[in-house]
C-alpha cells in the first residue's frame, strides 16, 4: 500500500493530466507533456526546509505561488491534500466578472482577467476566451473604472438571441468579462510556477503549523515536517479548520455553502461559445454557453450551509444534487430563456463554495503570528479574484504590504469573535443571497447580531433605538420617537431619501442647540503602561504627533507606516507619566493591536492591555453638556476650567473615577465619559434625569455621522487608509516633524512635503441637488473637475446645518501623460466640480477646510480641527 502510494505520487503530473482530460465532460485543452518537478523521481521525499510553504493547490494557492516566483522568491513548496484543483476550483463555473462592489475587487478581477490571457501565451495552456457579460439589471451605481455600457433590450436580443427581453428595461454590457476553464487556469499557473522552481506535492496534507515565539517555524504534514519562514493558508473550504488545528489558533472566519449549477446537453442550434454570459439579478441566476449548451447556476435565497461540523474530504467529491432546491433557479432560467424548455439536462453540479461574514475575501497576515498568511473565503468569486489576490498577497509577503489598500479584504478586520461556527453558519446564509441583490446603502446584517452589547442596550432599545452592528457590537443608529412608527425594514432600503431623515435631523438639532447622549462603548480601548518611559518611547515612535504632553492631555494622532500612510487614527490620553489610554475605531481592535504588538519591544516592563470590554463610553454632545456635567459633579465644566482636549478623573453622580474627556468626535462642544461598565446604568440614569431640563435626548450614529462629515472629519477605514498620508488629508498640523523621536513614516512625509501631494482630500458641497427627489450620494461616486474624472467620493452625509449634501472624497488628477499630477490648493480652488450620482451629474463646490471656517476666525477653525474626528470608530 505504501509503495503504491509512493508510485502514485511519483506519477502525479501524469495522473493530473489524465484527470484533466477525463474529468467529466470538461474539455482538456492540454496536450503535450508538462513536467512540474525538475526531480520527478525523488519527489516522494519532501524537502526538509523551504522559505515559503503554501497549503492548497487550488487556483488561489497556485496563483500565490506564481506571483511569489515572479517577485523573485525561491524555495517555495506548494502542498495539496488531494490533487491540484480538486476542491472548489474543479467545479466552479468559470466566469470572470469585473463588475465588483469594491474598487479594489474590480482591480483584482481586472488583473486576473489580463493574467489569464497572458498565461496562455506564457505556458501554452489555453485557458478560456473573452465572453462579455450581460447584467439584466443595471446597477444604479456604475462602478468606476470598469468598461461597461448600458444597452437597450433590442441590443440584448441581438447579443443573446435566447434571452426573453419583454420585461427588460435595459442591460449592463461588460465587454471585459471572460469565461475560462478553472482547472486549466489552475494548471497553467501550476505549470508556470513549476517552471520557475516551485515544488508542488500532491496528496500531502498539512496537519498543523508550528509557531514559536509568534513566528512560523515549520509545517507538519502527514509526510513529515518542513521548516519554513512563511506559511500561506490557501486551503479554501478547509482553511478554517487548518487555522484551528495548530497550537496557536488562527481564526479564518469562513463557512461553506452548497452551490448548484446546471449543465445542459447541446441545443439543437448550439449556443455559440462567444455569446455573452448572462447575469439576471432578479432571477438570481447566471448563464453561460457550455459546449453548445448552457451552464447556469445562481445564488438562492435559502442557501444550504455545509460542513459546519467539520471537513469531510470524501464528501466534497461526492456532493448530492438537490433538484428541489434548484427549482427556483431553474424556473428563473426558463423565464429568462424560454427556448431552453426543450433542452435536455446533462447534470446538476453541486459545488460547495466558501463565504465570509461580509462577502469579502480574507487576505493577509494573521494577527499575532508573523509569517502566517491567509488567502481564502472567495465568496464564489475565486476565479475572478485569484489572479489579483495572489498578486497582492505575494506583494504583502515580499514588501510587507500590497501595492494598494486592501483594508476591506484584510483578515485583521475580523477577530476571534467572528470565529464561532454558529455565527458563521447563520451569517453565510444571509450573505450568499446578497451576492445577487442590489447593494443598498447602509446595509445592516440581520444575522449574528446582539453579540456584543453595551450595558445600556436594553435601556436604549426600549427608548426606540434602531441598531447597526460594527465588529459584533450593537450601536444605535437613531431613536424612533414614541408613537412614531418607521416603515418596514424593506422600505428603508433605498437610494433616495431614507425614512429616518427627520428623526436624525431632530437629533442633530438637539446636538447643536441642547445636549444629546450617544453610547459609544464600541470603541477599541487599549491601555499601554510601563515601569519606565518605555510606553512613551513606543508611542513616540508609532505616532506622528507628539505624545510627550503633560498628564491629562489628549492627543489626536495617526499611527503611520513607512510610507507615511495611516495604519490607525486614534486619540491617546496620557493618564500618568507612564501610562496611556488609546482610543481607536471599533473595527481596529485586531488590526491596531497587531500593529502595536509588531513594533513593541519584548520588554517585560512594557504592558499593552485591551480594555475595550471594561469601559462604557457615553458621549455628551452639545452646548448644554457642560451644564449637565457640572450639576452632576459640582465641578465647573466651562472651557476656562476644563479646556478642550483634556482628561480628568472625576465623580459623576454617585460614581467616582469616571474619566471625563473634553472631546466629542464630532466637532461640537461636549464630553466623552469613560466609566467602568458597572457604573454605566447609574451614570446614564443620572445624566438623563438631570439633563431633562436642558432638553437632553438620545442620539445615534447617523446624527454623529452627519455632524462629523459637515465638519470635514475623515474617518479611518472609509476615508483614510494605509495609503493616505496626513498631508493628503490636511492634517499636517498633527504631524510633529521636529519632535525628538524619528517616528514611523517621517521620511516619507518629509519627502512628500517637498514633492507635493498627488491626491487631496476635499469636501464637496452639492448644489442643485433635490434631497426629496434625487438619488442620494452615499460613497463611491465619481468626481469630475471641469468635466474630467479626477476622483471618487469616500463618504457623504446630509448636513442639516447647511441643508445640503456634503461629500468627502479624494481628488487624484493625472497629467496629460497619465502620471499623477501634484495637487495644489490653487488647483482645487480653481475648478468647477460635479459629482456623478447614478448617472446624473450635480455641480458641487469643493472645499479644503470645514465650512465653518468660511465665516469664522482662523483660531476657531483650528479649535474645531483639534476637536476630534473619527465618528465611526
Amino acid at each position, binding site marked *: 500500500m505504501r509503495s503504491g502510494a509512493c508510485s502514485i505520487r511519483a506519477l502525479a503530473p501524469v495522473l493530473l493530466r489524465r484527470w484533466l482530460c477525463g474529468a467529466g465532460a470538461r474539455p482538456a485543452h492540454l496536450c503535450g507533456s508538462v513536467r512540474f518537478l525538475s526531480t520527478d523521481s525523488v519527489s516522494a521525499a519532501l524537502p526538509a526546509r523551504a522559505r515559503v510553504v503554501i497549503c492548497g493547490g487550488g487556483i488561489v494557492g497556485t496563483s500565490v505561488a506564481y506571483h511569489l516566483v515572479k517577485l523573485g522568491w525561491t524555495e517555495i513548496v506548494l502542498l495539496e491534500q488531494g490533487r491540484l484543483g480538486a476542491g472548489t476550483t474543479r467545479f466552479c463555473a468559470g466566469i470572470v466578472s469585473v463588475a465588483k462592489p469594491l474598487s479594489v475587487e474590480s482591480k483584482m478581477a481586472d488583473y486576473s482577467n489580463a493574467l489569464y490571457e497572458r498565461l496562455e501565451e506564457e505556458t501554452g495552456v489555453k485557458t478560456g476566451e473573452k465572453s462579455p457579460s450581460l447584467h439584466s439589471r443595471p446597477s444604479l451605481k456604475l462602478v468606476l473604472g470598469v468598461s461597461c455600457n448600458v444597452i437597450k433590450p433590442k441590443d440584448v436580443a441581438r447579443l443573446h438571441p435566447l434571452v426573453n427581453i419583454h420585461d427588460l428595461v435595459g442591460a449592463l454590457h461588460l465587454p471585459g468579462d471572460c469565461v475560462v476553464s478553472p482547472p486549466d487556469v489552475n494548471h497553467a499557473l501550476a505549470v508556470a510556477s513549476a517552471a520557475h522552481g516551485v515544488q508542488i506535492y500532491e496528496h500531502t496534507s498539512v496537519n498543523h503549523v508550528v509557531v514559536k515565539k509568534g513566528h512560523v517555524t515549520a509545517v507538519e504534514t502527514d509526510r513529515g515536517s518542513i521548516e519554513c519562514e512563511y506559511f500561506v493558508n490557501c486551503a479554501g473550504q478547509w482553511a478554517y479548520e487548518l487555522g484551528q488545528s495548530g497550537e496557536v489558533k488562527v481564526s479564518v472566519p469562513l463557512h461553506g455553502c452548497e452551490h448548484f449549477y446546471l449543465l445542459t446537453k447541446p441545443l439543437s442550434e448550439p449556443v455559440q461559445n462567444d455569446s455573452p454570459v448572462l447575469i439576471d439579478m432578479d432571477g438570481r441566476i447566471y448563464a453561460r454557453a457550455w459546449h453548445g449548451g448552457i451552464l447556469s447556476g445562481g445564488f438562492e435565497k435559502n442557501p444550504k450551509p455545509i460542513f459546519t461540523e467539520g471537513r469531510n474530504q470524501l464528501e466534497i467529491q461526492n456532493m448530492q*444534487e438537490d*433538484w*428541489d432546491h434548484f427549482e427556483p433557479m431553474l424556473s428563473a432560467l426558463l423565464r429568462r430563456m424560454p427556448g431552453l*424548455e*426543450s*433542452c*435536455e439536462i446533462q447534470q446538476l453540479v453541486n459545488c460547495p463554495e466558501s463565504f465570509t461574514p461580509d462577502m469579502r475575501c480574507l487576505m493577509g497576515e494573521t494577527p499575532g503570528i508573523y509569517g502566517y498568511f491567509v488567502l481564502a473565503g472567495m465568496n464564489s468569486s475565486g476565479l475572478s479574484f485569484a489572479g489579483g489576490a495572489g498578486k497582492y498577497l505575494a506583494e504583502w509577503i515580499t514588501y510587507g504590504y500590497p501595492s494598494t489598500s486592501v483594508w476591506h479584504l484584510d483578515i485583521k478586520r475580523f477577530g476571534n469573535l467572528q470565529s464561532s461556527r454558529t455565527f458563521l453558519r447563520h451569517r453565510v446564509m444571509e450573505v450568499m443571497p446578497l451576492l445577487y441583490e442590489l447593494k443598498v446603502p447602509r446595509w445592516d446584517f440581520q444575522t449574528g447580531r446582539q453579540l456584543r452589547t453595551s450595558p445600556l442596550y436594553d435601556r436604549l432599545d426600549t427608548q426606540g433605538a434602531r441598531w447597526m452592528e460594527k465588529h459584533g457590537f450593537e450601536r444605535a443608529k437613531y431613536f424612533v420617537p414614541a408613537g412614531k412608527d418607521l416603515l418596514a425594514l424593506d422600505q428603508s432600503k433605498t437610494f433616495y431619501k431614507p425614512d429616518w431623515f427627520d428623526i436624525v435631523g431632530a437629533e442633530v438639532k438637539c446636538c447643536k442647540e441642547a445636549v444629546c447622549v450617544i453610547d459609544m462603548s464600541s470603541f477599541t480601548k487599549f491601555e499601554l503602561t510601563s515601569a519606565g518611559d518605555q510606553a512613551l518611547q513606543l508611542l513616540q515612535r508609532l505616532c506622528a504627533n507628539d505624545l510627550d504632553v503633560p498628564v491629562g492631555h489628549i492627543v489626536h494622532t495617526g499611527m503611520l507606516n513607512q510610507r507615511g500612510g495611516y495604519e490607525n487614527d486614534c486619540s491617546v490620553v496620557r493618564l500618568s507619566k507612564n501610562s496611556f489610554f488609546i482610543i481607536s475605531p471599533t473595527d481596529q481592535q485586531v488590526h491596531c493591536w497587531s500593529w502595536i504588538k509588531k513594533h513593541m519591544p519584548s520588554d517585560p516592563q512594557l504592558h499593552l492591555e485591551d480594555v475595550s470590554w471594561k469601559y462604557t463610553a457615553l458621549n455628551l454632545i452639545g452646548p448644554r453638556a457642560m451644564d449637565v456635567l457640572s450639576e452632576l459633579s459640582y465641578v465647573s465644566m466651562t472651557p476656562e476650567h476644563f479646556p478642550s482636549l483634556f482628561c480628568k478623573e472625576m465623580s459623576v453622580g454617585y460614581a467616582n473615577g469616571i474619566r471625563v474627556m473634553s472631546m466629542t468626535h464630532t466637532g461640537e462642544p461636549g464630553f466623552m465619559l469613560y466609566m467602568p461598565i458597572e457604573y454605566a446604568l447609574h451614570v446614564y440614569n443620572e445624566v438623563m434625569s438631570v439633563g431633562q431640563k436642558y432638553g437632553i435626548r438620545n442620539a445615534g450614529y447617523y446624527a454623529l455621522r452627519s455632524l462629523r462629515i459637515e465638519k470635514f472629519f475623515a474617518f479611518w477605514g472609509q476615508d483614510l487608509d494605509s495609503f493616505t498620508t496626513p498631508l493628503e488629508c490636511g492634517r499636517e498640523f498633527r504631524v510633529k516633524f521636529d519632535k525628538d523621536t524619528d517616528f514611523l513614516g517621517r521620511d516619507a512625509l518629509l519627502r512628500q512635503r517637498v514633492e507635493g501631494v498627488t491626491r487631496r482630500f476635499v469636501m464637496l458641497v452639492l448644489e442643485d441637488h433635490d434631497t426629496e427627489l434625487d438619488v442620494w450620494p452615499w460613497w463611491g461616486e465619481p468626481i469630475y473637475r471641469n468635466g474630467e474624472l479626477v476622483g471618487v467620493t469616500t463618504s457623504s452625509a446630509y448636513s442639516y446645518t447647511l441643508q445640503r449634501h456634503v461629500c468627502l472624497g479624494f481628488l487624484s488628477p493625472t497629467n496629460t501623460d497619465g502620471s499623477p499630477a501634484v495637487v495644489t490648493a490653487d488647483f482645487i480652488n480653481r475648478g468647477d466640480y460635479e459629482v456623478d450620482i447614478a448617472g446624473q451629474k450635480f455641480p458641487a463646490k469643493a472645499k479644503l477646510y470645514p465650512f465653518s471656517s468660511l465665516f469664522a476666525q482662523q483660531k476657531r477653525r483650528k479649535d474645531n480641527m483639534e476637536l476630534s474626528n473619527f465618528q465611526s470608530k
Partner: protein
Amino acid sequence: MAATSHVFRVIRGRRCGRILVPPITCQNCSRPPHPCIYATRPHSFEQRWQHQVRGYRTTPAWHTYYLTPPQVNSILKANEYSFKVPEFDGKNLSSVMGFDSNQLPANAPIEDRRSAATCLQTRGMIYAVFDGHAGCACAQALTERLFYYIAVSLLPHETLIELENAVESGRPLHPILQWHKHPNDYFSKEASRLYFSSLRTYWQELLDLSVPGEQPDVAEALVSAFKRLDNDISLEAQVGDPNAFLHYLVLRVAFSGATALVAHIDGNELHIANTGDCRAVLGVQEPDGSFSALTLTNDHNAQNESEMKRVRSEHPLSEAKSVVKQDRLLGLLMPFRAFGDVKFKWSIELQHRVLESGPDQLHENEHAKFIPPNYHTPPYLTAEPEVTRHHLRPQDRFLVLGSDGLWETLHRQEVVRIVGEHLTGVHQQQPVSVGGYKVTLGQMQGLLQERKARISSTFEDQNAATHLIRHAVGSNEFGMVDHERLSKMLSLPEELARMYRDDITIIIVQFNPHVIGGQ
C-alpha cells in the same frame, strides 16, 4: 395490486347510490331526497360513468367558477376536529396521542356520521364512522346510541349495579362517556328519553347475565352491543310511540340504514367492529421509515367472497340467483350488513302492519311501501359486526377509519403514505435524480413545481384528515394536489356533487409509540 385497485375503482365508480330503494323523506332535513337514489334513475348515470376509468375523473361540462385557495380551505376545514389526549406531568400516559377527524359532504345533507369518545368507567377510547343510506336518520341514531351500548357492555358487574341503583334512587349518574364532538355533530333531544329507557333495559339484562368479578370480553361486548342496538331500533319501530313525532322518527330510523365501523382502543389492545363497507387501515412504519398499510376489516359487500357465501347460505338454494344481483343484496343494497333497513329484515306482513299503523306522512310516501323483489325468506340483512383484534406494536403509528367515500378514491397504500408523511412531517419523496434519462428542462421544472406544491399543501393542513380529504378530492393523475381540480370538485352544485363523489368521513387516530413500546 395496482390492477386490482383499478378494477375496484371502476366498479365503485359506476355506483351512484348505496341503495336503490326510495327512502322515506327526511323531515329534519326538509330537502328532497337525492335523485340518484330512485330506482329508475341510476341506469342513465351508469352509462355515463361507464366511459370513465376512475370515478372522479370526469371533467364537469357545466360552467364552473373557481374558488380561491382560502375558499377551498374554508370548505375543507369546516368540519375538521382535532383532539389531543391531555398530558399528565408532561407525559401522555395513554396509548393514543390524539386524533384528527373531518368529513366532506356530497349528499345534502350529509349521510355520514362520526363519533369519538373516551369511556370514563374503563379506560378505552372509542371511535366510529357511520355511513348512512336512504337518509341520515339511522346513522344519526347510531352516533347517539351505539357508544352507550358499547360502554355499558364493557362495564363490570359492580359498576352496572351502581348505575342501576343510581337511576333507581334518582341520584345523579356518573357520566359514562366523554364525547369529543365537533360543534356540527349534533344530538337530538326529542328521543333521548326513549333511547335511555331502551338502554336501561339493556343494562338490566346485562346485570342478570353478568357474574360479579368478571371483566367482560371486549369482542363479545362489541358484538352484543351492535346486535342489541339494531334489535332495539327494530322493536321501537314496531311498538311505535304515542307521540306522533317520535313515532315518525323511530320509523325513519328503522327504514333508513347505516353501516358502522367502530374502533375500541384500550392500552395496547385494538378492537375493530365492522358492519358494512367502511374500512379501518393501520399505518405501519417500516424500519426504513416508509409506511405500509395493514387492513383490519373486511368489506361486507359483493366483492367479499366469504360474505357472498354467507348470504347465500342463509337462504334456500332457490334464491341463490336473486339474493345477490348486480353486486347488490336483492339487486338493491350494496352493503351486506347494516343497521336499520327493516325492509330487508322484517317479514312483508310486519312491514305492511307497521306502515299502516304509522303516521300519515308514511301513507303519502309511495317508496316506503315498496317491497324488495324476490323477498321470500327475511331477514336478508344483519347488523352483527365482524370483530378484529389487534395487539398494537411500536411500529403501528396510526389508524385510519374511513367511509367508503375515501377508499374508492385513494388506494389504502396511498392513504397511509399521505397520512404518515403528514404526521411525521417527513416526505418520503426520493430526491430527484436525472440518472441516464433524457429529461428536458421544461419537464424537470414541471416535476419540481409539483413536488413543491405537494409540500406546501402539507403545511396548509394542521389536521391530517383534512390533508387526506384534500388529496382524495384534489389529486390529479400524478398524485399531486391540483388546485384547479380541487376547486372544481368543491364548487359542484349540490344536486350534482353526489355523482362525482361520495360523502367522505375520516378519523385518524395517532398512537403513542412511547407508551406502546414501553408496555
